[in-house]
């Protein structure tokens, strides 16, 4: 995919280096300060709310597919002028599978594993998320078919991509946000599993891009952004333990990359100028035509 993309080599995250809070920051364009291990909404309006309000889009036009129960509030903020009902519906595939599994005996534990960073944290869901009964109505997918397909998958991220592709077929949302989490197995300290997770994610991103090309609703008019939420601790920072965590706040843990490919993006260009992860939302606003007024990032000039 890299040869097809505009590749940004120097993306920094100056905020909290926890997965939920960092992803929330990516959606708002503001370094959020919420508790990483709480099921709370972002404080500032999300990209989904800006998109829907400014462009007068229905709820069906923007969705989030997220890996962990902890992400169930990421679709919309607590901001007064936006907030509940104005953002994206969040699908938690593992939650769906768990609910489906409770109806019949099946072993889907390999798809249901949750937060590697803190296995203790699996919060109760608090509304706003996509529910099991909506499978058939929206995704045209019976619970039996959903479970049958899940049996063929090996990881939570594979389940997320399957759901995302189903959403693209059935709803064709204009703004679709997918977060992937398999790589976080790094917290267990097993390097081979971390590498395996990276390779799987790499393959799934390519599968997603292939699905875009094969879907007439998306082919030729879709831009795909791929970026990690942040980096990982440097091998050489004494405060960390290399790839295992992202706790030191050192340059390596704050520095990552981004690629953009598809409609409106130059192919095969590498940009080394620094940008921040909160620049994503204003860039999306500039491309799609909405105004993320509270975002603290700046549109990426090289992209536009």
């Amino acid at each position, binding site marked *: 995919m890299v040869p097809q993309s505009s590749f940004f080599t120097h993306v920094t995250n100056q905020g909290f280096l926890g997965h939920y809070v960092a992803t929330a920051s990516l959606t708002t364009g503001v370094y959020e300060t919420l508790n990483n291990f709480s099921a709370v909404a972002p404080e500032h309006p999300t990209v989904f709310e800006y998109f829907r309000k400014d462009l007068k889009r229905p709820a069906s036009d923007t969705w989030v597919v997220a890996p962990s129960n902890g992400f169930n509030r990421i679709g919309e903020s607590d901001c007064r002028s936006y907030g509940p009902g104005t953002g994206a519906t969040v699908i938690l595939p593992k939650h769906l599978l768990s609910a489906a599994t409770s109806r019949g005996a099946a072993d889907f534990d390999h798809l249901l594993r*949750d937060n*590697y960073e*803190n296995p203790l944290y699996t919060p109760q869901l608090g509304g706003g998320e996509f529910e099991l009964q909506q499978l058939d109505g929206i995704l045209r997918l019976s619970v039996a078919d959903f479970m049958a397909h899940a049996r063929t998958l090996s990881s939570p991220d594979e389940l997320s991509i399957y759901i995302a592709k189903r959403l693209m077929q059935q709803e064709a949302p204009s703004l679709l946000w997918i977060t992937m989490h398999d790589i976080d197995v790094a917290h267990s300290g*097993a390097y*081979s599993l971390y590498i395996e997770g990276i390779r799987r994610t790499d393959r799934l991103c390519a599968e997603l891009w292939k699905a875009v090309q094969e879907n007439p609703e998306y082919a030729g008019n879709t831009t795909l952004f791929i970026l990690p939420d942040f980096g990982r601790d440097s*091998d050489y920072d004494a405060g960390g*333990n*290399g790839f*295992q965590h992202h706790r030191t706040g050192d340059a390596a843990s704050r520095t990552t990359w981004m690629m953009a490919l598809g409609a409106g993006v130059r192919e095969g260009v590498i940009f080394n100028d620094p940008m921040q992860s909160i620049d994503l939302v204003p860039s999306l606003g500039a491309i799609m035509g909405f105004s993320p007024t509270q975002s603290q990032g700046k549109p990426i000039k090289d992209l536009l």
Partner: protein
Amino acid sequence: MLPRDLQPENFTSYLPEARKLVLDYIEAIRQLPVTFLPSLLREVIEYDFKFPTERAAIDKELSTIATLSPSQAKEWFQPFQSISISSKLEDFDWINSPAQFIEQLSAYLWSSHQLDAFRKAATDYGARLHGAVTQPPLPTRRLGLAIIGQGVSSYEVPLFRSLRAHGTYFNQIKPENGLRLLLAAAASRAEAHPVPFGHWYVDGGAEAEHSPLLTCVSYQAMQPMRAALLKSMQSQIERPGMGPEQLRTYLARMSPSDLGAGDAGNAVLEHFKLKILTEGSGTQIFATTFAQWTTREALRRAEPLTLLVRFAPRQRQRPMNELLSNAGGNHELDPKGSLVDADMGAYYHWINQQRLQGYEQSAFLVWFEGHSQALVIAPTLPRGTQSSSSLDLGQLVDLAVS
């Protein structure tokens, strides 16, 4: 409470040696900023269970602080004074729970965008302290020995890739009796340089026969402790209202006896083992993570002259809940994945060894167990080269430390 208000009775819960140390230096401690002191107390509060090198470092740090002139003290601690904290943090019981305070301070520094300033203050302080404290020379050069790949009969991917630029790669090593020869070399060094906790043998599986002069920690010997910890964690997880912070606090307050470790052993070592399991992430479930983290912590804390680590196969990945619940009996192993883990673990072993005093003279050897591949890093050997010398592991150690 602020440091200037500290009184001897504030430290009654400290263990005897830690309390004595605090009281010996209480005047100096009162002068320290609250953004700094809990970090020091986090070390002091566990003084009774520290390794000799750690005790010596704490002693030197306190004596250095106590002898700073007013202008020096201002220069050293002003950056910490400049960091503001909330009144909630000031009111926290940082005397008796310094580690928990630091965790909350860290979150506060993130949210108030002061983390970079704190990092700089801490880094500068470390550099000043390092410059002010002189260390006696080591009795011999430090040696790291890593054995990786147990149970792997063939592996085609090049090993030691991260280390090759730093040392000499040997491809004709005689593997016979390799483990025994390396353990004998470690024991020989322990006999020649009898330093408490100075020579270690870490095994990610069952420990092989070894000299009693070596401090030994193994994954298999700690199985009862690991099982007790996982059971305890499971019961905590099921408690209503239990969150990540509460669990961390619960784990931090554990003692070895909570996990069935008797008092018959060495208390310092038993506490070390406990912390490997309660502070390490993945050490409870993966043998390779256990070996890597134990090596890191032994180097960081005990600063041994010799550390031999032998990696063993870890169990295959299973759902995290299943791993934590420790369900089932004999788990399928993943030898090749474990070799990849261990190859990286050996790289981290060398990096962690290079953080210690005498790193310019230290030596490191990693061997693919049962095979003819090894790599040696030593000041006397060329870097980024390959050798076809046919040596056994004992001769290779001799070459590394010659």
